[in-house]
C-alpha cells in the first residue's frame, strides 16, 4: 500500500491534492514525469503527472480533478488510507534549459504539473512569465506557488471574477508582442493547449505541451496512448508525455479521449447512486 500522508481540497472540492509515500519513485522522479495509480483491487490504472516530489521525505504529490468514478474513489481516500498500486516514474522528464525568456501557460489541473516545471525553469536561470487561467476565481489553483515560481504571474478568468477577464491566449498574445520569448510551455485542457499552439505557431515560438491520453500500462506495452505528432504515431507514455505542440494533432487527441465517455459516465453515475444508498 502507498499511504497518503497529506490531503487537500481545492477548487470547491473538485480538485484534490494527495501527498503519497513512495520513496523509490520520489528518489527517481523528475519534473514532467508521471505515475500510474490504482486505488484498490477492482480499480482502473489512472496516469497522473506528478505535481511535486520530496526525495528526502520519500513522497510524491499528485493533484487531480474529480471527473469520473476512479477519481471519485481517489477522492474518498483519507490521510492514512492508501493507494493499492503506484507505479513510476514513467515517461520522459522535461528538458530544462537556460534559454532567456520563457512563458508558462497553465489551465485547470494542468497548473499542478506546470508549477514544478516553472520552478525548474526559473532555478536554471530563465526569466519566467506565467499565465494561468480558470473558468472563475473559485476554480483557480496554486496561485501562490505559481507566483513564487515565476518572475511575473498573470491570472485570467473566463468570467472576469479575478484577474484579466478572458482566456490565457489573450494575455499570451500581448506577452509575445512585448517580449523576446524563446519557449512556451503550455499544460492544461486539450482545447487550451491547441489554441496556445495556434498563437505561438504564428509567431514561430517553440511550444511544449504535456499530454494525458488514455493508457493502461504506461510502459509502452499497449499503445492505447498513441498520438499523432508531426504525422507520426508516438506513444505518450514512453515518447512523451511532452511533445512539440506545433506538431501534435489535438483534434485526434480530443476524439480519442472520448473513447470510453459513455462507460465513464455510466460508472460515475452508478457509483454516485451507490454512495447515496
Amino acid at each position: 500500500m502507498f499511504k497518503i500522508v497529506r490531503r487537500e481540497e481545492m477548487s470547491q472540492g473538485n480538485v484534490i491534492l494527495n501527498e503519497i509515500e513512495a520513496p523509490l519513485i520520489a528518489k527517481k522522479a523528475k519534473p514532467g514525469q508521471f505515475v500510474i495509480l490504482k486505488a484498490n483491487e477492482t480499480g482502473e490504472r489512472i496516469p497522473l503527472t506528478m505535481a511535486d516530489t520530496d526525495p528526502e521525505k520519500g513522497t510524491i504529490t499528485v493533484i487531480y480533478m474529480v471527473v469520473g468514478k476512479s477519481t471519485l474513489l481517489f477522492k474518498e481516500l483519507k490521510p492514512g488510507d492508501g493507494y493499492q498500486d503506484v507505479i513510476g516514474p514513467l515517461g520522459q522528464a522535461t528538458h530544462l534549459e537556460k534559454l532567456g525568456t520563457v512563458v508558462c501557460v497553465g489551465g485547470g489541473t494542468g497548473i499542478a504539473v506546470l508549477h514544478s516545471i516553472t520552478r525548474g525553469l526559473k532555478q536554471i536561470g530563465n526569466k519566467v512569465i506565467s499565465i494561468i487561467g480558470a473558468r472563475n476565481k473559485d476554480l483557480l489553483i496554486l496561485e501562490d506557488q505559481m507566483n513564487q515560481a515565476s518572475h511575473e504571474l498573470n491570472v485570467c478568468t473566463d468570467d472576469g471574477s479575478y484577474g484579466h477577464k478572458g482566456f490565457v491566449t489573450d494575455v499570451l498574445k500581448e506577452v509575445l508582442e512585448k517580449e523576446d520569448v524563446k519557449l512556451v510551455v503550455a499544460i492544461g485542457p486539450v482545447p487550451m493547449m491547441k489554441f496556445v499552439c495556434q498563437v505561438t505557431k504564428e509567431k514561430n515560438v517553440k511550444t511544449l505541451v504535456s499530454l494525458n491520453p488514455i493508457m493502461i500500462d504506461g510502459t509502452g506495452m499497449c499503445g492505447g496512448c498513441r498520438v499523432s505528432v508531426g504525422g507520426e504515431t508516438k506513444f505518450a507514455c514512453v515518447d512523451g508525455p511532452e511533445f512539440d505542440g506545433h506538431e501534435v494533432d489535438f483534434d485526434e487527441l480530443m476524439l480519442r479521449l472520448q473513447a470510453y465517455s459513455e462507460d465513464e459516465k455510466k460508472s460515475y453515475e452508478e457509483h454516485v447512486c451507490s454512495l447515496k444508498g
Partner: protein
Amino acid sequence: MAEKKVKKEKTPRQLMPEQEASIRAKNFDEVPTGQSEETALIEASRCIQCKKPACIDGCPVSVDIPGFIKLIRDGDFTGAISKIWEKNGLPAVCGRVCPQELQCEGKCVLGVKGEPVAIGNLERFAADYERKNRKAPKLEKKPLTGKRVSVVGSGPSGLTVASDLIQKGHEVTIFEAFHKPGGVLVYGIPEFRLPKEIVFSEVAGLEKLGVKLECNSVVGRTVSLEELFEEGYDAIFIGVGAGLPTFLRVPGENLIGIMSANEYLTRSNLMKAYLYPKYDTPIIRGKNVITLGAGNVAMDAARTALRLGAETSRIVYRRSMQEVPARAAEVHHAEEEGVEFYFLTSPVKFNGNEKGRLTSMTGLKMELGEPDDSGRRRPVLIEGSEFDLECDLAIIAVGAGPNPLLTQSTEGLELNKWGYVVADSKTGKTSIKGVWAGGDIVTGSATVILAMGAGRVAADSIQKYLELGI
C-alpha cells in the same frame, strides 16, 4: 510383449471433455474441463514406454515424459507431479498452452501411424490433481548460499529462473512492472485458456519457497540494473518479454475502436474488463470485430470478442490457412465457436465516422506467389480487388517487438539491429558481466515453453557463476 503392444495401440486417444462451443463462446470459463482419473489411466496406458523416448527431445525443458506417464498409469498421480517438477515448475500452465503437436506429441512414435499420446492433457491432469489434493512433498531447498539474484519480469522465463535458483539456496527477488505477477500468462492469455488462479497459485508456491516478489517495479525506471548491483545483487536475469505492440501503419489506424491485441487482452485479462462494471476498467464491446493476424494472440483476441458479445468475429490474415502460425487447437476452437476466417486479405485503410470511431476496414485480396525468406509463399496483391468490411472494433495482432524501456536505459547492454538483447544461446549471458537474459526479449515473440527453456539455460549458467565464478 509384441501382442501387448498391438493391443495398446488400438486404444483410441482419450479426448478431454470440453464446454460445448455455443455455450462457451458466451462465458470466460475454461474450455477443456479436465480429464477424469479413469480416462487419464487409459490415456497413460497408451504410452509404450520407448527405450529412446523421442518425446523428451521434443520438450524444451526435457521433462521425463515416459517417467511421469508411467506413474500416472500406475495410479501414482502425486509421484507423477513430483517427476514433472524435477524439470518443469509450471506444469499446469504448460499442459494448457504448449504447442504439443510441434513438440513432445509431434515426436511421439504412436503419431507415425495413429494418434500420439495426449502428453499435454496428462501433464495438465497431474498438475490439476496436485492443486486439488496437495499431497506432493514440497520441493527441497539447498542450504542458503548468501548469494542474491534479481529476476526482472515475472513471465514464464523469470518464474523458471526464480524456481530453479531458489531451490539452489540463493535469495531470489522478482521485479514485476505490473501490479500482478505472471507477465503474459496474466495480461495476455485469456481466462478461458488459462485461468489466472492457476498462475497465481504457481507464483504463491514460489513465494512459499522464499522467492520475494516486488510488483509495481519498472526496472529501468523505478530502479536501474546498476542500482540493483549496488544493492548487493550478485546476478540479474532479464526476462521482460516482447512488450512493444506492432501496428500496421495504414491510414486511419488511430480511430477509436482500433487497438493492439496487447491493449485489448490486457484490458480484458489483467484489468478484468470482462467483468465491467464490477471492475472499473472499460473495454470496447464491438458488434462486428475483426482481428488482424492469425497467431495464438489473434485467436485469443477473436475468441475474447465473441465472449464480450460480438455478433461477428473475423480473423483477417494476409496468407492462407496453411501458413497460420497459431496452435492447431486454438484455430479449431476458434472455428467451432464461430470465428470466421478471411484469408489472403490485406488491410489497406480504416474508415471512421465524424466522432472518430471506426466503421469499416478497406481490404485487398491477395494470392500466394513465390516463397519468401521464411519459406512461406509470399502473398501478392490482386489489383482492383478492394472491398470494405464493416467493423466497429479492429484488434491488431500482427506481433510484438522488444520494449525499449529497460534496454535503452541500460548502458553497455548489447542489442541486435531489431533491439532485442544479445544473449549466448548456450548460457543466456549478455554483454554485461553478471547479467543474463532469456525469453521473448532475446528471441522475439515465441512460446511460453521456449521462454521457460531459456530460463532453465540461464539458471544453470547463473548457478555455475555463483558457485564457481564462471
